[in-house]
């Protein structure tokens, strides 16, 4: 289905990053560089929390930029630029996960000793229930707890949460990025919040706050 002229005009008018991308389409290297600089940190942030590894996140982010470059000639602004970019990121991450699964690399196996990997829900439930913080946690411990909690989510829930939290995307934008319906996103996020609440409950019950 093609994108209407009015849609193209709307996004071109309202989104400066769309205008930059149109310059990239015309082989403007400086525009490409500018987009890269604007989005590299954001992209790596989301990908790192998605896959649990900084190195993998950077590799994936570079793949994303390479795809942006390669698809520049067919680019048409049918959405905000960030939506389009993270759609590519979502696809790249999914492909990567599939190929890693095929190579029998299991990112989500439990290994409480390896902070790069994500433990399963059972392990975390056990860990959460047994770990009743008797004191205020420091920032690092809190980060570790939250990372672990994120890791209990499945990949789609995690992606939806990260896009909502870090990119402030609406349900509609997340839906577009993940190629789902807004209703499906609503369910995903609801389930994700519920899971997070369950895992992080001990910290909430105790009124545990992060100490600086």
């Amino acid at each position, binding site marked *: 289905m093609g994108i209407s002229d009015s849609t193209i005009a709307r996004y071109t008018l309202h989104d400066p990053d769309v205008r930059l991308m149109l310059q990239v389409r015309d*082989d*403007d*290297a*400086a525009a*490409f*560089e500018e987009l*890269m*600089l604007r989005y*590299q*940190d954001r992209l*790596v*942030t989301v990908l*790192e*929390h998605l896959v649990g590894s*900084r190195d993998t*996140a*950077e590799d994936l*982010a*570079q793949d994303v*930029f*390479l795809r942006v*470059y*390669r698809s520049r000639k067919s680019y048409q602004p049918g959405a905000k630029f960030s939506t389009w970019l993270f759609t590519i990121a979502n696809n790249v991450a999914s492909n990567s996960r599939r190929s890693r699964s095929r190579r029998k690399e299991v990112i*989500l196996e439990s290994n409480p000793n390896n902070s790069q990997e994500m433990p*399963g*829900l*059972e392990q975390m439930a056990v860990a959460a229930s047994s770990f009743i913080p008797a004191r205020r946690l420091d*920032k690092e411990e*809190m*980060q570790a707890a*939250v*990372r672990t*909690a*994120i890791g*209990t*989510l*499945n990949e789609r*829930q995690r992606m939806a*949460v990260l896009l*909502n*939290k*870090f990119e402030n995307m*609406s*349900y509609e934008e997340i839906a577009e990025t993940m190629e789902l319906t807004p209703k499906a996103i*609503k*369910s995903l*996020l*609801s*389930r994700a*919040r*519920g*899971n*997070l*609440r369950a*895992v*992080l*409950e001990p*910290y*909430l019950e105790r009124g545990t706050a*992060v100490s600086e």
Partner: protein
Amino acid sequence: MSPSDIEPPVDPLDEQLTAYLDGELPPEEARALEQRLARDVTVRERLRELAGAWDMLDNLPRSTVDENFAKTTVAMVAVAAKQDLVDLQKTAPRQQRRQWLTRVMAIAASLILGYVGFTWLWPNPNKQLLSNLSLIENWQLYQEADSIEFLNQLDRAGLFWSENTTNPDHLAMLVPPTMEERTLYVNQLSESQRNELRRKQETFEKLEPAEQKKLRELDHVLQTAPNSARMLEILRNYHNWLNARSPLEIADVRKLPADQRIDKIRELQLRDEEQWVKQYRFPSHMAEDFRRVYTWLTDLALQREQEILANAPEQQRAMIERQPVESRKRLLLKTWIDQEFAKRRSEGFEILTEEQRRELKNASPERARYLIGQFMRNIPAAQRKPMLPVTEAELEDLLKRLTDNARTILKPYQVPAGATDAERARLTSERNAKIWEWIGDSMRFAFYSRGFVSDREIQDYFAGLSDETKKELALLSPEEWKRELRNRYLGEQGGFGGGWWGGRPWSRDGSGRDDGPRPPGLQPDGPPPGPPREGGFKDGGFKEGGFKNGGKGPNGKGPKGPPPNNPPPPPEGGFRGPPSNGPNAPSKEPSPNPVPRPTNP
């Protein structure tokens, strides 16, 4: 499938609360929920827990990538761009290919953040070469150095460092730090440059292990030294200077231990001085005075350091402040002159014609200075405004520093007792005009005294020429191009705007000077005797040695110069100075080969 994929259905209340927290509930639903929250404490508690857990996500850190990420990403995209070009060349019609060539090259070139040029991929630059890139590129230079201490000695002695080098602290001579960048660098070399690199690698590998080890250690020390770029620049200039000398002189220098070499170098440079003083028509009896005048000038610049630095851009200021004192004085002097010159240039010169103003407007700063000098020759010396704001007291200080010889020459301008004000003014003005003539000469003298011209100066000079000039130079062979560029640079830059200072003009028209007896063989109005030597004197440092590798120097870097297989552009508006058999003309004499070391290819 992960455990969280097999889940009970979503609680509708949770779904509603989540959407409410995300601001995604339609207004009427949101109002209804708020009413429920107001009356139901369990719902409120549930909301609080969902919000609380969500807020804890604020503890997740945000990532920041380092500059290597950007560089390697750009490199990947540049390689993709290059592949596009290769694919396109296979399939696209010629016209389209040509259009694409420009655009793809532009995108790749500008993406590569400072690397320019865009040539074919070298399929397998082997890992060994890339790991040892600085060693392979520079080992032949290293053989002259023995140690970094020797280079430091050269530096302290003020030898082989040029303050005329633009931005000397940021020389593109150091090898890129990462393997990706090195691959990119190597891939953008021309065919002949890559072949040379391969040859250097092969020759290095044939050296004795002990020699290889020594060179490797020196490479490591030089590449990691805090003043690495400066040391390498000095080394390169020294190498070029030495290899331009006669075989006997080269052997004499090389056989000496490092601590004795400096004296030998100075001895050779003094010997050279005799020749170039004659060649560039300096009155030979004034050599010592020119040295003293130059010292006085640099002292003046140092006294004005704060003011000069205050008017300099930040990067230039920082660069000057980093220099050892002798270099700093010379750089301060150059900067001071540039600043004063810029003031005058922007003020305009009432004596210029429209055509001259147009030419000046389009000229690079160095060329503009030269042009002003040429234009000013039409004004009698006594009427020219001094270029630098020097006080009468400072001029008196200079007079005290001069030799008896110079004072003797100035005697006719002494104001006799009982002179009228008008006579006093006239004599003082004429005396000062003479002094300004010497000031100009002393700067030229200092320039030639260095004994070398760095590749970078030539590259910068070339970059400042007009497109028309560059195109004309392109008609010359690479060897002629090198010689011509060097000659022009020496002629123009050595003049520091010759006539403007009142100094001896480079054009060698033999115009009258009254500094004493002329060197034998030079007639007042005749052309210079004999055919000129190319680019300089016989065994001096201005010869081929300064410019061996197609305009790029021994490291093969320096995109400012044209690559050897790309004929560079030409001179602007014809040559200044003498006709085709004069010193500016390309000489047809073959250049002598530098003395090879036994292990050279």
